[in-house]
């Protein structure tokens, strides 16, 4: 599964294995679910959603500074 972290600095992470749920992905990457939104193919995902090995998900940080 591919995870694209869109901002503030764009980076991509490849995760191995099956049975990932959105909340596990966030925990694994040390991202706070209160600060981000997770999307797959432009659709928002809740934390209980399962992500398939062939999926690409995007994480968008909702927090801006300034």
């Amino acid at each position: 599964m591919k995870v694209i972290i869109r901002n503030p600095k764009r980076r991509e992470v490849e995760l191995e294995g099956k049975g990932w749920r959105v909340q596990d992905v966030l925990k694994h990457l040390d991202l706070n679910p209160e600060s981000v939104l997770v999307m797959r193919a432009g659709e928002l995902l809740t934390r209980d959603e399962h992500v398939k090995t062939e999926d690409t998900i995007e994480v968008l940080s909702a927090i801006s500074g300034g």
Partner: protein
Amino acid sequence: MRCVKCPDKAVIELRRHHSPFCKPHFIEYFENQVERAVRRQGMLSPDDRIMVAVSGGKDSLTLWYVLNRMGYNTTGLHIHLGIGEYSDASYDATLAFAKQHDLEVTTVDLSKTYGMNVPDLSKALRRVACSGCGLSKRYIMNKEAHERGFDVVATGHNLDDEAATLMGNVLHWQMGYLARQAPVLEATTEKLVKKVKPLYTVTERETAAYALLHGIDYVEEECPNAFGAKSLLYKDALNRIELESPGAKHQFLLQFFENARPRLEVGADEHELRDCAICGQATTTEVCAFCRMWQQAKRRVEQKEERRQLREAEAAAPTT
């Protein structure tokens, strides 16, 4: 996860309200929140001419979108700060949005109107960019709204922005700032236009979701000067608390507005307002903070230029 209001699949979960929502019910929730904030706080009247401060980011564009959808009479104000690519992208996003939604927008170019952009101003003052930038934005917003006859200025500050500001003010016990932090600042004189923050009860994450669900094309890029800002540290700290105890963030802010702030107003020093000797805007001092800052910046630039000319003359002088 199912929507709390219907059998459809949820697209977002708001733990602070124990509510997963499907798309239509989330949109309904969000707009209700804004509508209630506007009504309860007496922010806007149906016949008000509203100037919306738009940076091109998700909060200000979402605010503009929602107010327009609610039928208010809005005009955007965009200030071009001259912060490299970030400012160009922000300008483009604002104008594209205005065009797409057939909305009016006024723009002020800091460098063209006042002689320096934010990076130059910061260099001249030898101060962090945000201090000159923030002061300039606040001043220009009020001035443009006043001169163009607007009744109120609306800004996109959300719950996280306000809670982070509150945390900063509490950590340093800034009593003056605490007394003035509010979702509505009434016009105290004819020259100070009323300021409102209609998004103060919705979180940054909710605002981002609303923008995404409506395909609002905002600037995702951050201002380069925002990295390392204290507000980000406070937001992060608050969201860690929020994760362990959902609702803590809005309790912190809303209880402050409801219970703590009214007690601060008594005794908060009320300075008498007068006209700035240079620009005529309302101020408590002889020359307003904005004019003082620009005077200082211009003086520094002139001094630098004089020194440069002197060095050049010395270099050109024939040596004996």
